[in-house]
């Protein structure tokens, strides 16, 4: 292609650039003031803006969850009535999915880390990147208005015909999420172009970090699936505003068609949420096992395979919705296929750890929790994918437990792994390792206490989305509620040591984990333009058998850029040849 580094084999002279320790100037203090933050086009700051937003929404969604769990302590109504309960679980779902999970790893961590891992100065379209953050903000404003002007009680899926008839404010809410979709699309466009066009010299496709592969697969899903959600929600808005009759059976439409369109996005969206998590886990496991990743191509391509197969399985959400039994059979079969690339990943991670020098630092601990919980989530998903079993388990707490094991046990744990892993790079500060491990263990215990009982009561027939229940399930519900509170304690501890780290944490070294990956070969926090030189890559990102000096090569800036135009004498250490 047209990038100069990929055109021909040519010799470049490189020298070693050791990252500066505790730099005086870095991206956090390059520009000052609120206005500079709000108008920044620096991908790292935009990543942090996203990180702040998703933290806020995770807090809101988490409080709503605690509200639900508290209500469910007793079989009868305890303090909120059924209508409020419906609104609260809808908001919990919609906020957690659209405002927290979808942008969490791609937009927050991805924005921060992707150009660093590529050795680029920024994403391909920095202003578009900022625009996508503001589009996200506008979407959230719409949604907040919707919440305060009538709320919404359809569940996060907005199924017709109920969503066309309910008196709550579906119109504004769906419009907000419609806008949010554009933010997601723009991030995807930006990432794909960045990965194609802005790789550092020598960074060929077979040397890309697996996190980049995962973000690439995620971006493809975002770009291909999100527009269908947009048109679906637009049709829903029109259905409510004009009664166009495509989805509403009372005026001749077909509600199952809505479910097809909705899940054509929302099932791949599950992979928008989980695939970038896979990328984070690959990085963390390799770094803390001190070992080259096992099955590089298997992990890289299985991300793409999941992205593709993810588009073929949406109908497994509709087994009892009245779709044809032919479609159900095809969807059930295709659903099983998703297990293959996912299994490939799990086994490759395990093989990476085998005989590695495993260091159970906090990020690795979260990665272990991820492996444990996500495997449970994945297997129960396969069970739900089989037709006969699903008829029994559909719309019970079994499903609730399953997707919480995948979303929370998988994605949130991967997010936390990544957050702890890249925290030193983001802020140049270390957090308390001791408290990090404590909170990880507490969250692990709380999570299982909250959701394991739900598998049991689900298989016994407890339906989801009910605000009261028969006495038989009370013990399970109470265990679950206690688990939720334990989890909350874990997150409070985490907030505590994270804030402590920001205020008076110990300064982090440039590469506290001894990683070979490129983002660690620059100072912590990173400089304004990521690298003071143009990095040159000759090894894979996981070649732990090679000396660190080979990972810090680069050529001096000679052209373009703000701080350029000064001639730097290149101290020739070695002339590397690359393909």
């Amino acid at each position, binding site marked *: 292609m047209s990038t100069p580094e990929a055109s021909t084999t040519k010799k470049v002279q490189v020298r070693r650039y050791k990252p500066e320790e505790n730099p005086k100037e870095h991206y956090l203090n390059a520009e000052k003031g609120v206005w500079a933050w709000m108008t920044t086009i620096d991908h790292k700051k935009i990543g942090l803006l996203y990180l702040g937003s998703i933290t806020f929404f995770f807090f809101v969604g988490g409080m709503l969850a605690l509200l639900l769990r508290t209500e469910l302590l007793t079989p009868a109504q305890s303090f909120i009535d059924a209508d409020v309960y419906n609104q609260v679980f809808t908001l919990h779902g919609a906020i957690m999915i659209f405002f927290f999970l979808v942008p969490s790893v791609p937009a927050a961590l991805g924005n921060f880390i992707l150009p660093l891992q590529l050795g680029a100065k920024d994403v391909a379209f920095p202003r578009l990147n900022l625009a996508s953050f503001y589009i996200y903000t506008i979407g959230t404003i719409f949604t907040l208005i919707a919440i305060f002007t009538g709320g919404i009680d359809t569940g996060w899926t907005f199924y017709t015909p109920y969503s066309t008839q309910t008196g709550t404010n579906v119109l504004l809410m769906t419009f907000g999420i419609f806008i949010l979709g554009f933010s997601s699309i723009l991030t995807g466009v930006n990432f794909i172009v960045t990965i*194609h*066009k802005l790789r550092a010299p020598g960074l060929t496709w077979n040397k890309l970090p697996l996190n980049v592969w995962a973000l690439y697969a995620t971006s493809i899903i975002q770009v291909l699936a999100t*527009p269908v959600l947009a048109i679906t929600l637009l049709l829903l808005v*029109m259905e409510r505003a*004009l009664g166009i009759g*495509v989805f509403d059976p009372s005026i*001749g439409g077909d509600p199952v068609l809505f479910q097809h*369109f909705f899940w054509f996005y929302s099932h791949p969206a599950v992979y928008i949420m989980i695939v970038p998590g896979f990328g984070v886990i690959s990085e963390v496991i390799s770094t803390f096992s001190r070992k080259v990743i096992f099955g590089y191509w298997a992990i890289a391509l299985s991300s793409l395979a999941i992205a593709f197969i993810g588009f073929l399985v949406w109908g497994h959400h509709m087994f009892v919705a009245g779709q044809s039994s032919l479609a159900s059979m095809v969807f059930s079969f295709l659903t099983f296929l998703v297990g293959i690339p996912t299994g490939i990943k799990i086994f490759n991670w395990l093989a990476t750890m085998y005989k590695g020098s495993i260091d159970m630092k906090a990020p690795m601990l979260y990665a272990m929790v991820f492996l444990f919980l996500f495997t449970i989530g994945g297997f129960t998903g396969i069970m739900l994918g089989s037709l006969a079993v699903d008829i029994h388990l559909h719309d019970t707490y079994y499903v609730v437990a399953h997707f919480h094991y995948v979303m929370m046990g998988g994605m949130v744990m991967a997010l936390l792994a990544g957050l702890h892993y890249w925290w030193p790079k983001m802020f140049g500060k270390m957090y308390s390792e001791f408290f990090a491990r404590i909170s990880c263990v507490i969250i692990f215990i709380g999570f299982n206490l909250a959701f394991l009982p739900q598998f049991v009561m689900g298989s016994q027939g407890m339906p989801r989305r009910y605000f009261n229940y028969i006495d038989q399930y009370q013990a399970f519900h109470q265990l679950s509620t206690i688990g939720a509170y334990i989890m909350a304690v874990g997150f409070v501890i985490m907030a505590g040591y994270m804030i402590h780290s920001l205020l008076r944490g110990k300064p982090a070294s440039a590469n506290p984990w001894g990683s070979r990956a490129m983002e660690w070969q620059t100072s912590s926090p990173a400089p304004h333009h990521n690298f003071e030189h143009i990095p040159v890559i000759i090894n894979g990102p996981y070649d732990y058998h090679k000396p660190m000096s080979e990972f810090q090569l680069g050529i001096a800036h000679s*052209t373009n*850029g703000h701080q350029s135009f000064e001639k730097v004498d290149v101290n020739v250490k070695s002339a590397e040849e690359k393909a």
Partner: protein
Amino acid sequence: MSETSAETKHPAHLHHHFVDSDQQFESSKMGMWIFLVTEILFFGGLFAAYIVYRAWYPELYLEASQELDAFWGAINTFVLIGSSLTVAMAIRSAQLNQIRGLIINLWITIGLACTFMVIKYFEYAEKLEKGIAPGIYYTYDGLEHEKANIFFSIYYMMTGLHGLHVIIGIGLMLWLVWKAKRGAYHSEYYTPVEITGLYWHLVDVIWIFLFPLLYLID
């Protein structure tokens, strides 16, 4: 691209994170193509709805499309293809550094796009007068099929969304004219013209499918 890698000049249009103009141009174009992918799937949802309902009610489509005037649909197709031609000519002018030609061609394109919208307006007005309005406002009784309103809902959604894209295109091209008059574009840098052109051609392509699918069913 070999000739640029060692250059020391730093053109004004080049952003700092790109190595050279070519990399920036190719990146922008790829970004636009990915955006066009999303556009195709965006309209794809509507086409899917169209196909599902057409498979269910073929006779409805046969009957209801008689209400659409194939003559004006065809005229609009000619208009849009003509505007695609002028956009291509505009890009060619920019490539050859003929700024006057660029501006003239953009104005012709804007004119044709407005023609399209005017014809569309008369089509809509004629239908609304008869009571062929979208959704629950449908009051026309000239069609026997009980689901006639759905066909016209889909018709309004598809053509309405397409019309919205035409209006956005007009806006973009007015902006291009304004920038071109200020000398922003020349043969070394015409990326916005190129990618707006791509967008405009896609709007044309979508109409190429809408025309036979909506107007020519018999």
